[in-house]
């Protein structure tokens, strides 16, 4: 794929203006969008007429935030693709943030330490199960590849 495969920025913006409606049901005016994004009316007008073809990231982010669209909207290749994307409900892409941060950070650990993390996850799962069944004691904390005492000794008392 090359950049020339994409719709022009003006085409993408004009689809936005035609498809996204104000809460009152009317089309957005340049003034509405200017107020909501901080982008000057004249700049927005130049975008719609194609005089501005290559906006900056901050401008794109402001438009995305205002129109509730993902940045990939500006990678669309056809008008149909634009409309399809606009019909998709907004998703919370960050809801798995912690999990993926775990998965990501773990890639930098040794296999032994990775096994420790898996052991800890399983311990948390067991503890959760026990709690749901009305238990009031935690299962014994598993022994890790590197002794817990060793790590505690090295780090003092600042453990979580």
């Amino acid at each position, binding site marked *: *794929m090359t*950049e020339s495969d*994409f719709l022009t*920025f003006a085409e993408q913006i004009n689809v936005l203006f035609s498809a996204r409606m104000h809460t009152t049901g009317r089309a957005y005016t340049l003034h509405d969008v200017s107020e909501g994004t901080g982008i000057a009316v004249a700049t927005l007008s130049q975008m719609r007429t194609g005089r501005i073809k*290559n*906006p*900056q*990231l*901050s401008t*794109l*982010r402001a438009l*995305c935030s205002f129109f509730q669209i*993902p*940045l*990939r909207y*500006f*990678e669309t290749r056809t008008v149909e693709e634009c409309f399809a994307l606009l019909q998709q409900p907004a998703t919370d*892409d*960050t809801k*798995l*943030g*912690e*999990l*993926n*941060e*775990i*998965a*990501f*950070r*773990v*890639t*930098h*650990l*040794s*296999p032994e*330490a*990775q*096994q*420790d*993390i*898996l052991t*800890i*996850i*399983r311990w*948390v*799962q067991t503890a*959760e199960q026990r709690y749901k069944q009305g238990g009031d004691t935690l299962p014994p904390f598993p022994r890790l590849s*590197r002794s817990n005492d060793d*790590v505690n000794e*090295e*780090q003092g008392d600042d*453990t*979580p």
Partner: protein
Amino acid sequence: MITLQRQLQLLWENVLDDNSDPMTITQVAQKTGLSQQSLSNLLNGHVTDPRLNTLTKLCMAFDISLDYFGYDTEAACLHYLVEYGKVGILSPQLHSIHTEGDTLTADEKRNVLAILQWRLWGTKS
């Protein structure tokens, strides 16, 4: 709020080329058609608000979506890279961490993350 500079650093650190090596500035310059100076300016934070064409070229070079540059936290960027398989092939162990970790509640994930950070600290010492 993650900076564009950090977003680019994460890409450079984690997205590998066909030989499973991190990409060099020269490689990315060749793939994007951007000058090495322009890439350096982005990487060292001298350019913080690049234009759409530049971002599109970077997305093509790293085979990512423009969405990546819309995320405002490091966790969200990491999520994207892990979710779309940009951080290398997952070992069976990592795959288990990913799938079993998914069954945890948000609080539990944060707890595991805290333990992991503590473990990382222990590994360094």
